[in-house]
């Protein structure tokens, strides 16, 4: 048995002994994993799974041991993920800390910052939010105007961030702030880590067209942050910010994969119900073609995602591929729910109430929610710009 095979066997054994049966198959449900943080109130089984994994060093499997990680190689980390995927088990820990700020600190953080923040993420103590967009800075992120002014060994922040996902449930937030207005806009941005318990930080949820509120606005009113919380150089935060976006996009692509994978069977079942056709070929050829098209494109997307995973485990850092997969994944998600609503016909028009099937109601909300998929995490148009410039070498445009 090779080392990796032995490792796989030991991981299987760990999962069999520790993963609560109730979590099997829940990998792609809403809020499936443990998000951690001071405000967390997880289901007992979710917490038990997290704690078992923490004891085994598997909440941040590939992070270095010195920061509380599992110290696993990329291959070993992939094996753990594969074994979870096979059982549709959620990872023991999820969230922005693990997938976005953690990797960024590993690359750009000071030793002190790594020691302060990484173990707290690993242990699920701190939940992170992202403070990038502003009311006046969406796609043109570098045009942000939240200011931070140096005052001794502190920075004082004034301004507003928006689309701060689950800021109301988070403990810390990383923010991009303007520290220099005399230079080209990308060169006057600083990357700061802010404890949300600091006086002057407040947050409120934003209601979406779907009726859900995963996003918030976060306000900064004279918030004092120690200068040691700057990641990268002062005025040099744009490089750090872009690196983090690369992690975000690849995560978004990953996040799409589960929903996309189960779409075909659900759409076909829905069509059978709507058409009153319990067996045989669907009597509506147009609908059949549309379901097959979404399903086939989903299969191709999953293969493309797997291909990227394989090149990444060979040591390749995700670049513009993340943009490509983000576009494909978000388009597919929209097409899937759009088709789902259309298949249901009039039964797909419900907002709430007992007159409608709960599954139809959920699908319609998902359709509305999915309209944001091509906007959040960088609009599709911005992703197309990135592909045109970085991959195709087409310059000159805005």
């Amino acid at each position, binding site marked *: 048995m090779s080392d990796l095979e032995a490792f796989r066997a030991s991981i299987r054994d760990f999962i069999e002994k520790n993963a609560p049966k109730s979590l099997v198959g829940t990998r792609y449900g809403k809020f499936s994993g443990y998000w951690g943080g001071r405000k967390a109130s997880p289901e007992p089984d979710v917490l038990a799974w997290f704690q078992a994994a923490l004891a085994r060093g598997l909440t941040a499997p590939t992070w270095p041991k010195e920061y509380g990680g599992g110290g696993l190689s990329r291959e070993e980390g992939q094996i753990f993920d594969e074994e979870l995927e096979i059982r549709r088990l959620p990872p023991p820990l999820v969230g922005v800390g693990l997938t976005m700020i953690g990797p960024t600190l590993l690359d750009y953080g000071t030793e002190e910052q790594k020691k302060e923040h990484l173990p707290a993420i690993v242990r699920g103590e701190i939940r992170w939010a992202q403070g990038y967009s502003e009311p006046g800075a969406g796609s043109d992120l570098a045009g942000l105007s939240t200011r931070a002014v140096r005052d001794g060994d502190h920075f004082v922040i004034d301004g507003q961030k928006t689309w701060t996902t689950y800021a109301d449930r988070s403990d810390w937030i990383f923010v991009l702030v303007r520290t220099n207005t005399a230079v080209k806009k990308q060169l006057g941005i600083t990357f700061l880590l802010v404890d949300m318990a600091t006086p002057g930080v407040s947050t409120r949820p934003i209601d979406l067209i779907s009726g859900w509120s995963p996003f918030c606005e976060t306000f900064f009113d004279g918030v004092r942050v120690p200068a040691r919380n700057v990641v990268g150089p002062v005025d040099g935060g744009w490089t750090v910010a872009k690196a983090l976006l690369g992690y975000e996009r690849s995560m978004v692509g990953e996040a799409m994969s589960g929903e996309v994978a189960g779409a075909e069977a659900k759409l076909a079942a829905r069509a059978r119900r709507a058409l009153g056709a319990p067996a045989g070929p669907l009597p509506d*050829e147009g609908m*059949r*073609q549309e379901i097959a098209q979404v399903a*086939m494109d989903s299969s*191709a997307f999953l293969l*493309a995602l*797997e291909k990227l995973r394989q090149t990444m485990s060979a040591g390749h850092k995700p670049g513009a591929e993340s943009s490509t997969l983000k576009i*494909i994944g978000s388009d597919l998600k929209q097409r899937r729910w759009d088709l789902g609503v259309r298949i249901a016909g009039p039964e797909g028009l419900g907002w709430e109430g007992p007159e409608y099937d709960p599954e139809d109601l959920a699908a319609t909300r998902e359709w509305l929610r999915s309209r944001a998929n091509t906007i959040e995490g960088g609009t599709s148009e911005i992703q197309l710009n990135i592909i*045109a410039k970085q991959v*195709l070498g087409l310059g000159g445009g805005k």
Partner: protein
Amino acid sequence: MKLTYDEEQDLLAATARDFFTASTPIERIRKLRDAKDPVGFSRDVWKKMADLGFTASVLPEEYGGMGLGFTELCIVLEEAGRKLAPEPLVSTLLLGAQALLLGGTAEQKRQYLPKIASGDAIVTVAWQERAGRFDPMAVTTTAERTPGGARLTGEKIDVLDAGAADALVVSARGAEGITLFVVDPRAKGVHVQRQSRIDSRGSAVVRLDGALVREDAVVGRAGQGLEVLSAVLDRACVGLSAEMLGGATQAFEDTVSYLKTRKQFDVPIGSFQALQHRAARLFIELTLARAAVLGAARTVDEEPANLPRMASLAKARASDAFLHVANEAVQMHGGIGVTDEFHIGFYLKRARVAELTFGDAAWHRRRWATLGGY
């Protein structure tokens, strides 16, 4: 399933790319077309491909092959597709050789496969008829029993490289159902009439006018034809999709270069966002097509039970991508794109032919749905 190439596969791709770049300038395709070449490809180039092992790679070693995987064959097909090389890869390696390999008797394999491996035999499959579009069951060609064999009557269309073939594998309907027969194209009662298609490759109508074949011409067993043919067409779909991926990628790359050099309003037209986003969309489409083709090629060797769906996935994705890329390539080249003098139109014509070979995207989506039980 591994979706990246190892070092040897990278090397094969580089070798194939160098070979087709050197041997197949667009002028060669144009000359073959303008000369109304009866064969439609170069036997000399085919022989050189054999010398490089391209024809032997996928065949088993016991028949003079190299015993490599389907992925290796697809690598060569993709590079051939980039340069629109018209050599009989599809007819002989994807159709003829696979029909004999999957269905043929030991004697048939011994007779033809080593010669295919060495580049000395062209074998194709005559399965399509005027009615039925892409349906391998739409067979009206008849096989009547005779003492010692059968008598074949009917008409087959789009028989790839029939004009150059040493043997045709023909589907015909008889008492046992659909059967495949090995037919000598020079035999009495066999008439091969070259078609002039938009891609000017060698394809022909084959008329069987009571052609007589011996008992040993039956591929495998009588009545087994559909089963063998379906398996062959699945593999052919995967291979042709690889060729289409190559053609689409080349047409795309040529177009992106043009966007960088063509100036209007004093700037390269590639600086216009309207064109940048369309080019980026094509890149995305090619990313999906490539993933589908790589997955399907691996499926042939590693998960044959899943091949029918994966073959349809690859062919549908490749068909949509190649057509989309070729249409956009012509449009983005503007006026010169619609001239015969410029090469990009050759890609559009090949895209259309390849799309309508072995089933277009809509046909494969229907098949996918049927295989998926809905």
